[in-house]
């Protein structure tokens, strides 16, 4: 096993190495993050002032739709899979993923899926314009012709996710080093194990719902058309049965990353490890029985409303446990504030704010006023940007020295953090206000009373965008060189990944370590 990577492009095309594949996932997701981010900037630029200035409503709707799809399926999910590829084998003392060829395949179909999705922008009738939630019949009878390409690309993304998830489950369950019992696994491994099960459970549901759309559009069925005996609300039930676990797919691995970083920089073991595991499992379970809280205004019977309201409120309990655990881990620690820690602390604070607005949204009668307003936009950006994006960023800074063998530039990291932190809050905090004041989401133009906060939000968005350039620059510099990192990188961090040299050799743990 002494051989290293092949030279040239074929290394990346044929690779079955978990580290190579992890890197490809991460770079791909960053490219998608920039693409989706540019679309967000088009949206924010249009919303800078009332009136139509930059784009027309048709194109605006394509931007909101593509921004959502690309960020969810192209940026956040592949980034977490990339981190899992890099870190799960190294954290459990395995030489590689359990199914390395499938690993290659699940990555390499993604660029094709997104190339196809992006190509719809240039098709007659334009890209999908029905929102990332693609409610029927707007996405079936009334959709642009490109919807068929959208359906096909969703199928490919789903196949990629399912293969990735199966691989992670197989790796974690079969390839742990001797002595690495389930309850000794790092939380990142635990959260990914649970996430992988969620993926396997719901990606087929997404595939099902887009296939039903395909049948309605091309083969004369009427799943979602009332005129043919179908039901448009059925679409929403099926979609959100996928969609709600999906939002936890985008946050559970984040919990794992933050649970690794906070103890390191607090120099104190994670508080309540087993309650963290149980809380993650409870959140995953609850995610399957709360989907209709996205649909409080569709006119469900009151018993349904009450059930989904109560179940949704319950999620606050395990989520609260997690937040309390992180805070208690910090309490009486010996803290330093390097870039990964800054991003993790911002994660805890801002994710909690997003959790509060989530709790408010769970209250069905109040939701009637919040639903489909900017308050919802503020809520889910507060859980996704500081939640998923900040944790991924924290993870990259935390593990980058291990991957490259070089320390990143700490000053630049801090500049990145503060630009992103300020930019994000300036962008999304005012959205709570305009939402409560009555601004619906997904509109290209708005009434005058919303102008001031929208202007502020647009300025913040461009600052947040600029912060990512600093990040890119910092990462490239670190890959190319810089101060050498020690094998431990940080002060006494916990985990097997720190027991291998920096940079991590192409093959690690060819003979399993023994965990006591």
């Amino acid at each position, binding site marked *: 096993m002494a051989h290293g990577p092949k030279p040239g492009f074929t290394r990346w095309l044929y690779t079955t190495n978990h580290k190579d594949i992890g890197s490809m996932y991460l770079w791909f997701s960053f490219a998608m993050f920039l693409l989706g981010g540019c679309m967000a900037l088009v949206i924010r630029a249009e919303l800078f002032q009332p009136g139509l200035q930059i784009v027309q409503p048709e194109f605006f709707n394509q931007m909101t739709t593509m921004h959502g799809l690309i960020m969810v399926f192209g940026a956040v999910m592949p980034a977490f899979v990339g981190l899992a590829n890099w870190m799960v084998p190294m954290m459990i003392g395995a030489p590689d993923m359990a199914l390395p060829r499938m690993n290659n395949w699940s990555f390499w179909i993604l660029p094709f899926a997104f190339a196809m999705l992006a190509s719809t922008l240039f098709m007659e009738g334009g890209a999908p314009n029905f929102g990332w939630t693609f409610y029927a019949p707007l996405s079936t009878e009334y959709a642009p012709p490109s919807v068929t390409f959208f359906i096909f690309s969703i199928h490919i993304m789903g196949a990629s996710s399912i293969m990735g998830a199966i691989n992670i489950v197989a790796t974690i369950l079969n390839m742990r080093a001797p002595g690495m019992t389930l309850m000794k696994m790092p939380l990142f491994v635990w959260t990914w194990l649970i996430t992988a099960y969620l993926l396997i459970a719901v990606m087929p549901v997404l595939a099902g719902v887009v296939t039903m759309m395909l049948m309605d559009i091309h083969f004369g069925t009427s799943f979602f058309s009332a005129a043919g005996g179908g039901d448009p*609300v059925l679409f929403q039930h099926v979609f959100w049965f996928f969609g709600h676990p999906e939002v936890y797919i985008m946050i559970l691995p984040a919990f794992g990353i933050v649970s690794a970083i906070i103890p390191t920089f607090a*120099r104190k073991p994670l508080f309540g490890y087993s309650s963290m595991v149980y809380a993650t499992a409870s959140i995953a379970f609850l995610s399957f029985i709360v989907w209709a809280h996205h649909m409080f*205004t569709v006119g469900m019977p009151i018993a349904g409303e009450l059930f989904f309201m109560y179940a949704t409120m319950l999620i606050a309990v395990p989520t609260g446990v997690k937040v309390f655990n992180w805070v208690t881990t910090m309490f009486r620690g010996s803290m*330093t504030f390097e870039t990964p820690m800054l991003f993790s602390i911002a994660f805890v604070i801002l994710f909690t704010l997003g959790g509060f607005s989530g709790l408010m949204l769970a209250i069905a009668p109040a939701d009637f006023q919040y639903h489909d307003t900017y308050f919802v936009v503020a809520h889910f950006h507060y859980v996704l940007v500081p939640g998923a994006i900040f944790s991924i960023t924290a993870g990259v800074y935390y593990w980058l020295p291990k991957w490259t063998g070089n320390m990143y530039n700490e000053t630049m990291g801090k500049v990145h953090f503060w630009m992103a932190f300020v930019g994000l809050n300036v962008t999304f905090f005012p959205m*709570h206000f305009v939402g409560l*004041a009555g601004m619906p989401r997904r509109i290209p133009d708005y009434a005058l009373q919303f102008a001031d906060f929208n202007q502020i939000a647009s300025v913040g968005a461009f600052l947040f965008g600029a912060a990512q350039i600093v990040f890119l620059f910092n990462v490239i510099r670190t890959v190319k060189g810089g101060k050498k990192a020690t094998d431990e990188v940080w002060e006494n961090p916990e985990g097997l990944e720190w027991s291998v040299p920096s940079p991590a050799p192409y093959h690690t743990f060819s003979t399993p370590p023994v965990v006591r």
Partner: protein
Amino acid sequence: MLMGLKRLFAFLTLSVLAPGAFAQQAAEKAQEGVERWGVNMTQGVTEVSRTTYDLHMLIFWICVAIGVVVFSVMFYSMWRHRKSKGYKAAQFHESTLVELAWTIVPTLILVGMAIPATKTLYDIYDTKEADLDIMITGYQWKWKYDYLGSDVSFFSNLSTPASQINNQQPKTENYLLEVDEPMVVPTNKKIRFLITANDVIHAWWVPELAVKKDAIPGFVNESWTRIEEPGIYRGQCAELCGKDHGFMPIVVKAVPEDEYHSWLSERAEQAALIKELTNKTFTFDELYERGKKVYNSSCAACHQPNGQGVPGAFPAIAGSKIATGGMDSHLSMVVNGSPSNPAMQAFGAQLNEVDLAAVITYQRNAFGNNMGDTVQPIDILNFKNK
């Protein structure tokens, strides 16, 4: 898209000069008397809207209280327990008692929230014993109001002129929140709304009434309100419904009961008048002028005010095969809609015969089509009855 990029570039250049633009815009808006910097939900004008507001504030303050406790502990330790201050880390990592406490206490708080929420929900769902029923139908991109039990039925379209939207004219106070025909309702009566849609899903939302309900094609949802204060209450569609989702506002005008009844009988008379006009023969100019108005409120959103359409999405009227072809196929397209493209709605049920005759005449003669023919309301009626 290229055009979009060009404009984006112009915007970026502009945003460098932003501070000036800010001040100028602020001055512009101050004159218009728009209520700016609103940060909270409206208390509204109904019992339900006030209860909802109270519930919202209750949860908000509970969240604030929890946040203060959690973040105080966090900021305290970030301040005191730093390595740079020489603080040595403790090594504790679990405590069953503490962990049980912070599972049970939040559960109890949640129960405390759920009780008033459940009560309010029951109230909102009680649509029984209404004094008045109004059927609301969402169309791309307008609302139709049918006053059940009377002949009164009309469409409510955005009345903000395109010139304001395209920044050729200054925007007025109710920009994008004004319609040609508001829904008129009596105060202090229980009004039941029966909400549905004709094409895609819409949602009917008026914040001050705390009514938001999806309008779903093929299904009828119910909601209700009882407005205490006369006034004009504005809302918008709250479910993405296509291109002009942002341009289909709702205006509810609440008036005292006697005023409502006189309005209703006036509207009923107008409906009777239109029926009479169906038998009248109009001149070309009368039809053309009326047709232009109808075109701008019913057709221009897709086919554009200049009749050029939107390439790839909405066909042009100017020089189109239908508008410059046989009269029957033109009538069929407008009255019955397109058999292949659902975006072209059946206007037969949406417009009266006079307006249909006018708009078809207009389409055949405007935008350089110059067919020189007219169609009379009675022809439309005969076509419909064929």
